[in-house]
């Protein structure tokens, strides 16, 4: 019997770690999606932001985020604060059995949670792409991953008052996705649209992404990672009931993505006259976000429909935000925010324990918290160091301005055109990157 308990502990821990690794890989998905949907001259910088934010998120969550979210709290509103330790469960505690016995490693829980924080932060980078200063962004990431995210995470998943109020969010349509989108919205409002996105007479000018194969690869990577995101959030796989649940979560997650993709593709075709691939990609992600709040109780057909509604919403929302001059190059606010809200509301369709008032309360509280604190943080950063690159730098591309290099030096008609190879063009970079130095 001891051996069986130990094995099931090992299996649940292993499952948790593997799901965490899948979610970690979503960082690659966001990175590729964003790299594909920005212009070539801003590619290297968005890559830098993505690797940078991932590292910042992990360090901040270790230092204080995890402690805020899951440590001892003052009450159900005010979390405590502590650093990640290395204590883990003893074999004795595990073998004691019963309801309270731990069934997976503490550190596997940290690993699974930390990659969620990075996901929320990745959402922000896409929305503010092509015009935000690299270091202002990373500074915001410190506050977001160390404080803003963990506090609302504590209110729900850490056993705070939202959890007590009956607010349901299985894997994070609200806690992760809407949170990322609300922070992004606050940033975009203070940042303004990309130069050239709106003409002087107010018309919307499309700015096509530079690499749709990368955007498509990124979407598929996110889709794969989402099985860890939702599947892992079941937290256990080691008995028949749990194993079946995990399988249903996998199936529903996959079906919702397909529903979202088809709905968005079809709507784009009918509305714009052509099958816009980028909308189809956003549609798949919208389906995934929509099902994340409750992938366990819907039947697969309902999951497909929930995803499908997400796909319709995302296309409409992207067009509407464009009209409102909220410039979001990759559609992150629509995919994760608008559809995240839809996902939280859709919980009541299949889960009898859900109530609409509780869902609305959760949406309102999380949005108000994240949006207001993020807005204040962005505002403070803007005061101190500025959040937007200079106009000159924006025209030349933030790759050269912020990173001193280009993603594709031999293809673009950017600064690198003075030489055909990076080596030849290097003096030109240095010159243009620091125009004030002679």
């Amino acid at each position: 019997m001891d051996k069986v308990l130990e094995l099931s502990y090992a299996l649940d821990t292993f499952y948790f770690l593997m799901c965490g690794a899948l979610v970690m890989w979503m960082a690659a998905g966001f990175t590729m999606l964003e790299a594909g949907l920005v212009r070539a001259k801003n590619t290297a910088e968005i890559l830098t932001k993505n690797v940078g934010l991932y590292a910042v998120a992990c360090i901040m969550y270790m230092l204080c985020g995890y402690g805020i979210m899951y440590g001892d709290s003052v009450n159900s509103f005010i979390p405590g604060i502590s650093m990640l330790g290395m204590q883990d469960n003893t074999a004795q505690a595990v073998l004691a059995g019963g309801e309270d016995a731990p069934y997976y490693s503490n550190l596997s829980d940290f690993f699974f949670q930390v990659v969620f924080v990075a996901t929320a932060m990745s959402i922000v980078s896409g929305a503010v792409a092509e015009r935000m200063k690299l270091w202002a962004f990373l500074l915001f990431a410190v506050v977001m991953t160390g404080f803003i995210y963990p506090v609302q995470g504590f209110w729900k998943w850490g056993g705070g008052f939202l959890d007590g109020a009956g607010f349901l969010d299985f894997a994070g349509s609200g806690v992760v996705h809407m949170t990322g989108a609300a922070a992004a919205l606050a940033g975009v409002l203070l940042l303004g649209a990309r130069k050239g996105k709106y003409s002087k007479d107010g018309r919307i000018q499309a700015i096509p992404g530079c690499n749709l194969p990368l955007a498509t690869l990124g979407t598929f990577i996110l889709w794969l990672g989402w099985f860890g995101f939702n599947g892992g959030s079941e937290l256990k796989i080691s008995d028949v009931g749990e194993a079946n649940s995990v399988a249903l979560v996998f199936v529903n997650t996959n079906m919702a993505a397909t529903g979202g993709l088809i709905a968005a593709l079809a709507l784009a075709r009918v509305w714009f006259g052509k099958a816009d691939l980028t909308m189809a990609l956003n549609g798949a992600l919208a389906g995934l976000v929509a099902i994340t709040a409750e992938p366990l109780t819907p039947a697969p057909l309902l999951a497909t429909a929930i995803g499908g509604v997400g796909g319709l919403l995302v296309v409409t929302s992207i067009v509407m935000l464009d009209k409102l001059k909220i410039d979001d190059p990759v559609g992150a606010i629509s995919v994760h925010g608008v559809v995240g809200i839809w996902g939280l509301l859709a919980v009541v369709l299949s889960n009898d324990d859900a109530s609409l008032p509780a869902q609305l309360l959760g949406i309102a509280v999380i949005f108000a918290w994240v949006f207001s604190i993020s807005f204040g943080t962005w505002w403070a950063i803007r005061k101190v160091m500025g959040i937007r690159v200079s106009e000159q730098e924006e025209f030349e591309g933030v790759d050269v301005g912020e990173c001193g290099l280009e993603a594709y030096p031999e293809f673009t008609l950017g600064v690198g055109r003075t030489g055909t190879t990076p080596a030849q063009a290097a003096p030109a970079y240095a010159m243009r990157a620091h125009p004030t130095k002679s």
Partner: protein
Amino acid sequence: MKLITIIVNPHKVEDVRRAFTRFGVSGATVTEVKGYGRQRGHSEVYRGAEYSVEFRPKVKIEIGVHDDLCEQVIEAVIDAARTGKIGDGKVFVTELEQAMRIRTGEIGVAAI
């Protein structure tokens, strides 16, 4: 001698090359270019927003030919590049004053 500048759709480059090679034209300079003609580009939709493609990608081919061959070459090139649709391109003919082959120092017709 004449310098013939041919601007065609990228997918027609190989046909055009075959057409003038038949007349013994032994060299050509090919450049990827962008431009517009009477139609002035066209418009597309990206994520719900219309945008105009003002400069279409084309390929510019420059060849030097003997005066006697010029008309036949142009005829063959036009025959190879024409689809009858908008955007087939242009041919410009200019007088070529002198030509030199750098390696051997040959000048005039021998150099083209």
